[in-house]
């Protein structure tokens, strides 16, 4: 039977069991969040033995070469010696530059950008609370334009990290963040391509980053941003986006407000998927970004695919909740 060695403990691994679940079963606390290979909060390092390739999928080469792997995806078949990832290699201490509300529930947090902190707008970083609880937040800032990192954080009822960031963190406090990752971002290989980006709630954060990045990189095709919200009050950065729409011929800002305040001019009788299909017309060569609520993102992905979008042109960023 395969086993792992951790803290001088030898722990047997059942076939198909992950390193994360084996360690948790033995009472070792290993930080983790999504348990599905997305957030990278469960990063550990192997000091001896062979790491299965699946446990390193999506990691930067620099991490792979140092033996880092994702504990939630690691099902070893041979003995493996593992340690918790030494923090200094992967976490940065950064100052909070600004802390203000964009609407009643959404906090905009600007953080100092550490040297060598490379990222693409739309990727996400991990914010750590007390070393052990990590949550992913998407980047709305753009490296060539902003010298800070910008995050939009929605207050979740009873949420550990979101409430802490809203209530207990303020300007000049120090936060610990872990490098950016994720593959939902702009690449300048098809500057004429039509782009449709839809985000619900704080799904707007990665999408604003991607749009500003595309504009900065001189994207010439039409760019349609759709912000989906339950109520008008859930929209944010409305004026900023309207201004952007005015300034750039190729950029179009749309809202999709579902709930029945029909008196309000922004109320939309169309559902979000109808709206996207309406904007899209011909999706064959359209690049699509979908961010926010996981159920909605997955169902939109299918709708857009069935309507003719190519799977390789659909970038999805479901904000899946943490299981810790």
């Amino acid at each position, binding site marked *: 039977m395969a086993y792992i060695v951790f803290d001088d403990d030898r722990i047997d691994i059942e076939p198909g069991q992950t390193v994360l679940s084996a360690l948790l079963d033995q009472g070792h606390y290993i930080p983790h969040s999504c348990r599905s290979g997305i957030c990278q909060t469960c990063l550990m390092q192997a000091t001896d033995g062979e790491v299965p390739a699946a446990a390193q999928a999506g990691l930067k080469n620099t991490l792979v070469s140092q033996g880092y792997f994702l504990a939630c995806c690691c099902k070893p078949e041979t003995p493996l010696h593992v340690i918790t990832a030494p923090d200094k290699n992967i976490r940065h201490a950064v100052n909070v530059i600004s802390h203000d509300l964009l609407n009643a529930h959404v906090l905009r947090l600007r953080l100092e950008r550490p040297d060598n902190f490379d990222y693409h707008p739309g990727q996400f970083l991990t914010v750590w609370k007390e070393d052990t609880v990590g949550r992913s937040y998407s980047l709305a800032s753009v490296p060539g334009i902003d010298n800070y990192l910008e995050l939009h954080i929605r207050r979740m009822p009873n949420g550990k990290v979101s409430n802490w960031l809203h209530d207990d963190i303020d300007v000049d406090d120090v936060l610990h963040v872990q490098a950016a990752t994720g593959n939902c971002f702009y690449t300048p290989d098809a500057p004429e391509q039509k782009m449709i980006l839809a985000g619900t709630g704080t799904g707007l954060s990665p999408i604003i980053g991607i749009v500003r990045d595309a504009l900065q990189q001189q994207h010439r095709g039409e760019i349609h941003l759709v912000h989906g919200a339950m109520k008008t009050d859930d929209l944010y950065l409305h004026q900023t986006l309207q201004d952007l729409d005015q300034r750039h011929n190729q950029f179009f800002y749309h809202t999709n407000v579902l709930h029945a305040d029909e008196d309000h001019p922004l109320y939309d009788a169309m559902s979000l998927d109808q709206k996207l299909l309406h904007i899209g017309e011909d999706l064959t060569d359209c690049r699509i970004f979908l961010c926010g609520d996981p159920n909605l993102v*997955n169902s939109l*992905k*299918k709708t857009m*695919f*069935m309507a003719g979008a*190519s*799977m390789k042109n659909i970038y999805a960023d479901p904000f899946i909740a943490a299981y810790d």
Partner: protein
Amino acid sequence: MSSLYERIGGQGAVDAAVDIFYRKVLADERISDYFDGVDMEEQINKQKGFLTMAFGGPNEYTGKSMRDGHAHLVERGLNDSHVDAVIENLGATLQELGVAAADIQEVADIANSVRDDVLSR
């Protein structure tokens, strides 16, 4: 003489066919339930494996792996009618891509050759 895989267009044809094929399969009520996985990307990659094999391309699948790979579907009632439906969708996909009728027949023959393994017989 070029091989079937080369005539159809190799890896490029697999990439072109996979979206069309997967879209047809998801729209086909006879079989869509089997394919409606949570992770569409992963499903697309698996369908690429299927297409490469059916196009006579390089693949590592054996009768045993076809058996193991579909056993959980056989438990859910997979039978000849589903295999027929898959082959039909495959044919329609290739027709849309302008593949010659004789080549489409050859593809169907390859798919048929593993029918018994797919159905655990």
